[in-house]
């Protein structure tokens, strides 16, 4: 049997493991990663592949004994011609754009306000995080109760004073969407603020001090030093929120159910209805795939924009 000497000790080396150290290390690393890889394949890739596969079939579990008929891209064409799906797609974009923009602006303001160390700021931060800790379904139910015109703490008076109209904001075709956006903003702005605050706290103090010493004003320091250095954190916050806002479901489901009419119907609400209420698996899969595609495109666009901004900042 071959032996390997380490110092004065001889370690036996079997023929079977006659691999080089580098190969064995690679194998070891692969073995370490294997459970995670298997998990991702089983939980993410396999369902994703199945979802793509099903989207090419007319496959309704409640009809025709759940038979599958290949229909090519018909489900995607249906998504385009179906006025409800089109409205849901537009609503989802409006919701995502408005909610994430407002959350980012408010979140940045809050992060800048809380940047300085201090007991007051720490206490504020703790309170600020309360909305994030509440599950979205409960947030939706709370707002629904608050805005109810018959008994809601706000809804009753808003209707009495003629601000919301007699039927309340959630039953108004013009106000329902702003209200669900507002609910999302209330819940998720603190998270954006927290992420940005973490980014601000990790900025190198010497650069900021140097900028101050050079006589830069607060606005100049923010525009030319803080913002460029904060870009990776901004990217993280935006991507997280865009992904989350695009698949909004709970809040809308419990507050408006996608109504009144279809004014707040989102792609996820529509997809869940098709998949879990009508068991229309082919069409629901197509909706899901379009959602994934939209999220990937949006996130790729963010990556490009941030990278370009980063390059431009470095050139300066």
């Amino acid at each position: 049997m071959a032996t390997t000497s380490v110092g004065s000790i001889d370690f036996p080396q079997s023929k079977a493991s006659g691999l080089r150290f580098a190969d064995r290390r690679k194998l070891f690393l692969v073995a370490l990663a294997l459970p995670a890889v298997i998990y991702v394949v089983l939980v993410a890739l396999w369902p994703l592949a199945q979802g793509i596969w099903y989207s090419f079939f007319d496959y309704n579990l409640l009809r025709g004994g759940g038979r599958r008929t290949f229909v090519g891209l018909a489900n995607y064409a249906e998504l385009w011609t179906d006025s409800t799906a089109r409205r849901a797609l537009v609503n989802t974009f409006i919701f995502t754009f408005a909610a994430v923009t407002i959350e980012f602006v408010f979140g940045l303001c809050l992060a800048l306000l809380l940047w300085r160390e201090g007991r007051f700021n720490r206490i504020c931060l703790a309170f600020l995080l309360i909305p994030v800790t509440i599950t979205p379904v409960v947030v939706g139910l709370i707002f629904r109760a608050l805005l109810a015109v018959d008994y809601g703490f706000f809804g009753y008076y808003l209707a009495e004073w003629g601000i919301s109209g007699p039927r309340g904001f959630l039953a108004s075709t013009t106000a329902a969407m702003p209200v669900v956006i507002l609910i999302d903003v209330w819940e998720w702005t603190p998270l954006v603020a927290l992420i940005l605050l973490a980014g601000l706290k990790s900025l190198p103090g010497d650069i900021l001090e140097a900028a101050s010493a050079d006589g830069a004003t607060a606005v100049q320091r923010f525009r030319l030093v803080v913002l460029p250095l904060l870009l990776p954190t901004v990217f993280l916050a935006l991507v997280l929120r865009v992904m989350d806002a695009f698949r909004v479901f709970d809040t809308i489901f419990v507050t408006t159910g996608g109504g009144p009419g279809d004014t707040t119907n989102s792609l996820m609400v529509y997809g869940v209805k098709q998949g879990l209420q009508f068991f229309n698996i082919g069409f629901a899969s197509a909706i899901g795939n379009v959602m994934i595609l939209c999220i990937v495109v949006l996130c790729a666009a963010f990556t490009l924009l941030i990278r370009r901004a980063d390059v431009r900042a470095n050139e300066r």
Partner: protein
Amino acid sequence: MSTASLLKLGVAGLVSMGVAGSALAADKPLAGITLNLASQNDQFAPVIAKLAPKFEEATGATVKVDILDYGSLLTKTQADFVGHTKSYDLVTMDIVWAGQYADNKYTVDLTDWIKRDAAEMKLDDIYPSTIKYIGQYDGKQVAFPFAGYAAVLAYRKDLLEAAGLKVPETAEEFVETAIKLTNPDKKQYGFVANGQKGPAVAQDWLQYNSQLGGSVLDASGKPAINSEANINSLKIYKELFDKAAPPGAVDYDWGGREESFRQGIAAMMETWSVGAPGYYDPSMSKIVDHVAITTTPGAKGMPVKYGLGGWGMGINADIDPAQQEAAWQFIKWLTSPEIQKEFNMEGAGSYIRKSTLADPDLNKKFPYLPVIAKSFENADGDYRPRIPQYPEIQDLLGTAVNAVLVGGVEPKAALDEVQEKAAKLF
């Protein structure tokens, strides 16, 4: 004691245990069987759970009742049927699911069993309309009725008297009376119905639509959703919401609607008879002494018919025959005259038998039972078509009618869009 004596004693003990065991088995033929029942969270559900130990006492079979809301019941039972997972032996089936159940053979066809046990079940005592509509579809009996509901008109005697108005007997009178009884300054409204997007508004509108002469399907069974009669009835429904309903009603589901009536905000409401016990319960109602119930008013010149709804119980077709037989025993037990009386004395509000509706004790407790009996005799359980496509049609209507009520969409445009989409389902 000698070893031989001990042995004799042991043998005697075993023999006596065996005899006792076989006697027990004869007394309780279903001992050891457990039946899992998925039940809608209606008034009958806690009563079934309460009475289930009596069935165990009588037969030996344990019944576990899983009480679910409408959406969860639909999703969980469909997943059970589609995946053949046999999680439930018995399921409560809404009247409108019959088409889907029959189409997909989810449950056992009970036709032969009903014929076999007709005498034992006293079938003549059960309203034929409940058997026909709650579970019969395409020649199959996919569920057996145990909870029939009649669409009834609940109204406030005091408000009608004070206004010098009589109880409306036609749909036209109903609209007039509802508007006359409305005074928003006093927070008093003449009418309340479901306006919330989804099944809530769709089901309530279909009830009024039927009374006003509308219909979802034409004579050939194809969608006729944008018919003149339907457009007209939707206009009337919107007029009622605009002129006679509490402003929040556009977002009411069944709970909100019933609550507004019990709290005395609305003077008239068409509803399922199952909610009626609540109006007479002082712990939850402010109108105990002023409420009355009558049959629903239909349009002038229309044949007399009253909406029928309710729940049947189906047996999962995937479970083994012995389990199916035990499940059938449970259905027979639950729908027997004795248990139906007890079931309703406990407040289930669910009727299928003539003898139950005529029972003096029940009539003393619930004075409106003759109204239900009259409705069952002229029942229409098809105004919400019990076809496989019904869930999708209901969803389309639920969005369209709500859009009309909140404004911005004209009844004709809304129903045209529903018609176009519904036609694709056939």
